[in-house]
């Protein structure tokens, strides 16, 4: 007896919901953009400059006392948060202290860091500092630019590759799905105020990779069915393709999600934000391959002239088929 996530032969009418889902996607994107603009992202020091110090102690973290100890140093904006994690030992108390970029300095001066460490140790002599990171405003500005370039380059490359392998409508659909995934991921980061740093950008790009992977598999089947069923209306061919790949889509998302859940629970707090971004992206990406990518293709329509059977894309596709 085999585990089946879906019945053997499904013929569900996925595209019936297309108006609602597309509407929901648009609303979600608008909401994400609104939260992003209104609330803003909780940028890490990679993008804002400044210093983060991680403290560890056997004594309980007293945020108020830490704050009082640092007050006389006049460091400007200081954020102190206690970090909780199921992987910590019982007497492991961790806090994260973040200091804004100091005016006029490329990087927080070593004296400042030393002063902070001394001040904190007067509160709790057993404090250790497992990590101290400091990024100057000059570099952080460049890191933002590079990150944006990376995202744009990735999306551009996808647009080009899908256009080469399929047809332009598919490329537009796939890229719409990608933008959807990225915007929604940024939205959830703004909503939950999860720290947004370089690793998050890497996660976003991974989400792009995963999402395009999923979209391509469904498009591949669609391309095949479009040749097979020349007379059937596009919407029915789409439904058929989604149904045929459904089992695979759920299997792959399922295994990937299993791995990611293991990481998010057991992987420690340092990479939690990173893994969360990927986890969220996999869910959103699976949804968007069906309901955003194909919707867009449906709206744009596909050239199905039997005299020139889908030229551009399939002539390359035959090579490795």
């Amino acid at each position, binding site marked *: 007896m085999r*585990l089946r996530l879906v019945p053997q032969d499904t013929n569900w009418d996925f595209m019936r919901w297309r108006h609602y889902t597309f509407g929901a996607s648009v609303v979600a994107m608008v909401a994400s953009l609104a939260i992003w603009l209104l609330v803003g992202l909780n940028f890490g020091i990679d993008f804002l400059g400044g210093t983060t110090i991680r403290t560890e102690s056997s004594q309980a973290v007293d945020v108020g006392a830490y704050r009082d100890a640092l007050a006389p140093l006049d460091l400007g904006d200081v954020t102190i948060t206690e970090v909780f994690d199921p992987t910590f030992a019982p007497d492991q108390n961790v806090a994260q202290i973040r200091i804004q970029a100091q005016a006029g300095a*490329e990087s927080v001066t070593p004296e400042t860091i030393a002063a902070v460490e001394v001040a904190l140790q007067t509160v709790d002599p057993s404090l250790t500092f497992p990590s101290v990171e400091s990024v100057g405003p000059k*570099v952080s500005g460049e890191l933002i630019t590079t990150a944006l370039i*990376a995202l744009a380059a990735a999306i551009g490359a996808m647009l080009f590759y*899908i256009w080469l392998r399929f047809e332009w409508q598919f490329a537009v659909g796939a890229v719409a799905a990608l933008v959807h995934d990225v915007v929604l991921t940024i939205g959830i980061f703004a909503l939950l105020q999860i720290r947004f740093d370089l690793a998050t950008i890497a996660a976003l790009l991974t989400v*792009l990779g995963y999402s*395009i992977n999923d979209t391509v598999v469904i498009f591949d089947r669609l391309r095949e069915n479009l040749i097979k069923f020349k007379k059937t209306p596009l919407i029915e061919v789409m439904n058929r393709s989604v149904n045929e790949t459904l089992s695979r889509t759920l299997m792959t998302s399922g*295994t990937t999600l299993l791995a990611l859940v293991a990481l998010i629970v057991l992987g420690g707090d340092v*990479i939690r934000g990173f893994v969360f971004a990927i986890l969220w992206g996999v869910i959103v990406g699976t949804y968007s391959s069906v309901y955003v990518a194909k919707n867009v293709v449906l709206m744009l329509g596909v050239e199905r002239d039997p005299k020139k059977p889908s030229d551009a894309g399939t002539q390359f596709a035959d090579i490795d*088929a």
Partner: protein
Amino acid sequence: MLQIALWKRLSILLVCVIGLLLATPNLFYGPVERHNDAATALERGSVPTPEIEAALAEWPSFLPSGLVNLGLDLRGGAHLLAEVQLEDVYAGRIDGYWPEVRDTLRDLRGTIGTIRRQESPPDELRVRISQPEGMQAAVDAVRALASPIVSLTGVGQTDIDVSGAGDILTLTLSEAERAATDDRTLQQSLEIIRRRVDEAGTREPTIQRQGADRILIQVPGIGSAQELKELIGTTARLTFHPVIARGADSATTPDADQLLLPDMEDEGVFYLLERSPVVTGDDLVDSQPGFDQNGLPAVTFRFNPSGARAFGVYTSENIGAPFAIVLDEEVVTAPTIQSAITGGSGQITGNFGVDEANRLAILLRAGALPAELVFLEERTIGPELGQDSIDAGQIAALVAMAAVVVFMVLSYGLFGAFATLALGINVALIFGLLSLIGGTLTLPGIAGIVLTIGMAVDANVLVFERIREELKTAKGPARAIELGYEKALSAIVDANITTFIIAVILFTLGSGPVRGFAVTLGIGILTSVFTAIFVTRLLIVLWFERRRPRQIEV
């Protein structure tokens, strides 16, 4: 029907075996690392001690010993991004032209009158002449001092630009000369930082040039970025200057060819010095920590022959006059010359402890940095934090793997078992390849591997699902398997090429941990496609040939 040529089978098998062999050392990380360290020590000419022999014996030398490097976030250490202040060098270059320019213009005293060096930005030389009508002659004469540049881009150009306006003659470095100088400065800085870090004896530091004026330094195992900065952040420019006056206060304005520098120990004491040094640290050949006659820590140094000659000539001509030893714009000491020092060696005593004397000796030995470094980014990661991350990552990877195995076997039975076997080979191949290219495993990299475990089954799933479909229509299981692979291929290839493109973009534009992630992701894609298309297929075919089942269930 279902056939794979013998040579293909053998090559698939060979790749797997090689991958597994390359991956094995990582299972015994500690012993292999000690073995490698011992081997390097011997190569460098160390005398084989019992400890080294013991460490060497911990891992047989006929087995591969390449290891995956652990990134800073896993091993702990310091990371610095430094910007080299390239303009610093211009001032020195410009000062270097002054004596030559002065002598040339003096010869023309008849036409241009008297000359005087003017205050100017550090990258310009300005000279005022008393008879402006002779300016053209002066400019021509100075221009004749220019020498052509030997570089790929600067063909046909000279090193200086000379112009005259009113009674002021201005000399600047030409664009091409600046570019060439910048490049040289950065190369020199890189070399000197490398030497200093090597002298400190740490394992596998990364010292890389980034862009036009930056250097990335990563040193695993060092306590803090602060420690590293003290080592590489000091310019350590040692110079010897004639003293004009001692005890001047900070309000004194020095002439254009003089320097006003503070004393290192006595606050508020300043020295007025001649700007051109008699000898510089460039002429040092050796420097060692030691003790002076009073038993205080000191640093001894030795000049090369030309430095020794210059120093000898100067001291013999100026007995009784004071001279200053200047380190990074501070006067360490200013003794009076008792006698001519012709032996070419000397000693610096100052207010430093044994550690400082040690460090100063290293710095002087490694040479001065040509320009100051400004640190734009610094990160310190403690080793415990790294170990915690490794442990957490390992557990997560094992749990992820177990979950995926159960899921696959429940869904696809025997074929699922084949896929998980291939998955194991896949992970081994990832580590094997990483060890082979000396890749670095970072925390996001571990996440990348775990993600690959999830995604690697995708290709198998695509094929299995396709076989299921084909079983409904095709004639017999063999044909179904064959068609399954054939038809799933285009989806597999497209899906993985797109993800691979993303990995390439991440690698090109990313830095540090992101780059590490891109490498594991990229390698993971390659190996998972290989294992899905070749290894799983080979397993299925082998099984099929033995059993020859009439019908199969996938």
